[in-house]
């Protein structure tokens, strides 16, 4: 049945086993829920077979035109020619049939789920406290481990960039509850700020980094002002439009941004004035410390740079949460009207959330520009925003650890499937759907209140009103 009747999932004190895996139980499919004492249902195997058969039929309808008949531009650019691939269709339909059958049988015969008790929730929470320092320790030591390759290091940098972006967006979406689908705009503002200032005025990375943050924060306020009154999906679509506007402007303002060609030759960062050079030479990092010149130095430096930036984001977020501003964000997320009634300045609260979230996006953008030494509007498409938002939501809104894990799973997984080439994005999108259906509250679905009277107890994410703003 529709979830109208589904109670919020609190920490269950024994009792009702709860089916939260999102797969509708047989009784949920029709209109009327079949009570446990209703007439005995059809034998599960027959039912499963019938259902799988229907699914296979639907799959046949879906795949026959788009997979079975492939159109190609004919030789000489003439009309389209048609090629049939019935074998592929047959395989896909068979997969759907088998998968659906297995799913049905599993849901009919699986052992009863152990109810989630307070004790178990507490156990999970205790494990959680160990996981975070473990991750941190691994992240710090990773470049020093002997078996870390150059590829692993670059992958680490990529994952950490998304961790930072996720944490930045988490301020806006997870804490203040403002649904932002245009976060990549601030990333772009940061990247172009550094790219333009360094190539035009020769400013160094360390001067530009705060400037990139400030410019991005301004962009955040610029976006924040008009959307103050908007909520929910409307806010999402306006922020999406804002992100697209920034991208289209970057693409078409050729005299400033170079248009689709982007800006290349962006200076790399230096270590207290010591530059990194694979060739060595006086005044370089390797020369100063008497090391063998190696391109790995810069990679390690970039790794620690993004690690520090990401941890800064995390630290600021954790500190802010305990301060009046952070509490105001969380209150705003739960109920805007109540906030107003209690005398919280909603305008300022929203604008600071946009500004601070955007600032970290700007930092990450400046880092991106210096790492790539090249920026173009192609890097700042809507899909980036969607990936960052997906990281935040899949991780569990408001959960710092969850965001980090989600970034690792999504981006690491995305890179791990590099061999799949064009199927990679398909798998990525499917993973987004599957994780969401499997765990709508994200991977880490418990929350700890920032402020509580007496003991602070973890509560289910369902009790938190995230993303309504």
């Amino acid at each position: 049945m529709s979830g109208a009747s589904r109670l919020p999932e609190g920490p269950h004190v024994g009792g009702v086993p709860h089916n939260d895996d999102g797969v509708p139980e047989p009784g949920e499919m029709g209109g009327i829920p079949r009570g446990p004492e209703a007439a005995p249902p059809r034998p599960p195997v027959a039912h499963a077979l019938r259902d799988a058969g229907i699914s296979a039929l639907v799959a046949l309808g879906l795949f026959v035109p788009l997979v079975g008949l492939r159109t190609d531009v004919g030789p000489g650019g003439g009309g389209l020619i048609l090629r049939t691939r019935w074998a592929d269709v047959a395989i896909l339909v068979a997969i759907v049939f088998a998968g659906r059958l297995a799913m049905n049988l599993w849901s009919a015969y699986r052992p009863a789920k152990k109810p989630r008790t307070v004790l178990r929730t507490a156990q999970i929470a205790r494990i959680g406290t160990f996981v975070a320092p473990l991750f941190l320790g691994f992240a710090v030591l990773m470049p020093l481990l002997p078996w870390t390759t150059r590829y692993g290091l670059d992958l680490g940098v990529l994952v950490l960039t998304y961790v930072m972006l996720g944490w930045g967006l988490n301020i806006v979406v997870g804490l203040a509850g403002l649904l932002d689908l245009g976060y990549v705009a601030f990333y772009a503002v940061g990247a172009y700020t550094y790219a333009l200032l360094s190539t035009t005025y020769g400013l160094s990375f360390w001067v530009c980094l705060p400037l990139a943050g400030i410019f991005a924060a301004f962009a955040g306020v610029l976006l924040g002002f008009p959307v103050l009154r908007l909520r929910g999906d409307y806010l999402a679509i306006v922020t999406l439009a804002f992100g697209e506007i920034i991208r289209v402007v970057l693409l078409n303002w050729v005299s400033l941004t170079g248009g689709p060609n982007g800006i290349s030759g962006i200076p790399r960062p230096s270590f207290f004035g010591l530059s990194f050079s694979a060739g060595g030479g006086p005044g370089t990092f390797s020369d100063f410390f008497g090391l063998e010149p190696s391109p790995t130095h810069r990679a390690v430096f970039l790794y620690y740079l993004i690690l520090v930036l990401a941890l800064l984001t995390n630290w600021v977020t954790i500190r802010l949460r305990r301060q009046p501003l952070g509490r105001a964000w969380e209150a705003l997320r739960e109920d805007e009207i109540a906030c107003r009634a209690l005398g919280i300045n909603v305008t300022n609260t929203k604008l600071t959330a946009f500004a601070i979230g955007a600032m970290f996006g700007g930092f990450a953008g400046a880092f991106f520009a210096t790492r790539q030494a090249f920026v173009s509007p192609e890097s700042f498409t809507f899909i980036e925003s969607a990936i960052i938002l997906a990281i935040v939501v899949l991780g569990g809104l408001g959960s710092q650890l969850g965001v980090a894990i989600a970034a690792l799973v999504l981006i690491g997984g995305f890179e791990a499937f590099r061999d799949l080439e064009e199927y990679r994005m398909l798998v990525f999108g499917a993973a987004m759907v599957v994780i969401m259906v499997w765990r709508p509250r994200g991977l880490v679905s418990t929350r700890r209140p920032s402020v509580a009277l007496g003991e602070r107890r973890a509560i289910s994410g369902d009790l938190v009103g995230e993303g309504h703003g």
Partner: protein
Amino acid sequence: MAYALQQLINGVALGMIYGLIAVGYTMVYGIIGMINFAHGDIFMVGAFVSLISFVLLSSGGWAAGPGAVLLVLLVSMAITALYGWSVERIAYRPLRGSFRLAPLISAIGMSIVLQNFVQVSQGARAKPIEPIITGSVELWHGNGFAVSVSTMQVVIVVVTLAVMAVFTWLVTRTRLGRAMRACEQDRKMAGLLGIDTDRTISITFVIGAALAAVAGTLYLLRYGLADFFMGFIVGVKAFTAAVLGGIGSLPGALLGGLLIGLIETMWSAYAGQDMFLLRELNPAYKDVAAFGILIATLIFLPSGLLGRAEVEKV
């Protein structure tokens, strides 16, 4: 003057297509309160199914007459409706009653899946087809500029109006339409009164997808090109149209679509021309114009042109 009239005609034809897609957004938003992010890609799938059907028909040696076009339209509607139904079944129904962001994320995921599915199965290159409906009628000749309406534009307007008429009848006069409107007002209450809400929502998706398929077919016939990414920008514009017309309002969706189509066409036609302030504008910013309108509407007229104002109860 002649030029403006010509652009008006072009804009109306484009706006009709946006309007058809906008109906899908507005219906789904009305009934389950979520932006169906994959709807733009459903439109793309509709265009592709039509493309494939056209190629299939022409390779079978069928003449490309009105009968063939109608057949393709029906096939495309059927297959695309199946896609719409499957998307709802796989990605949205398990999340019904979950918190608000979950369906949005799975919708974005579904959009990525559809785009890349078509890219993998049909290739990344844009697919051209030869014009099927050709010919035009010259309406007026003045100042050395002829105003003409192409047969295709007439077909777009006629088909859109016919489909919308059927659809309006469906929503306002039938039992199904009544169930849909009831679900829109209060889903829980409708369920208590014996309406199968899940089925009604499924049918809403099916109808929305069928309308998107009509739009996809018309778009393909008009512009002669389909590629796997075409759904995104058209989808955002159609959503803008739905918001502009007032979300939840069906005539509003068509009105909003017309306005967006006109504004976009006029912007491309007049921006950068040597008149007053227009020379400051860049035709490349036509999408920015559409998005700017979206933002302005939401700020100054949040309930749209024909929508009802939402009252928040505490």
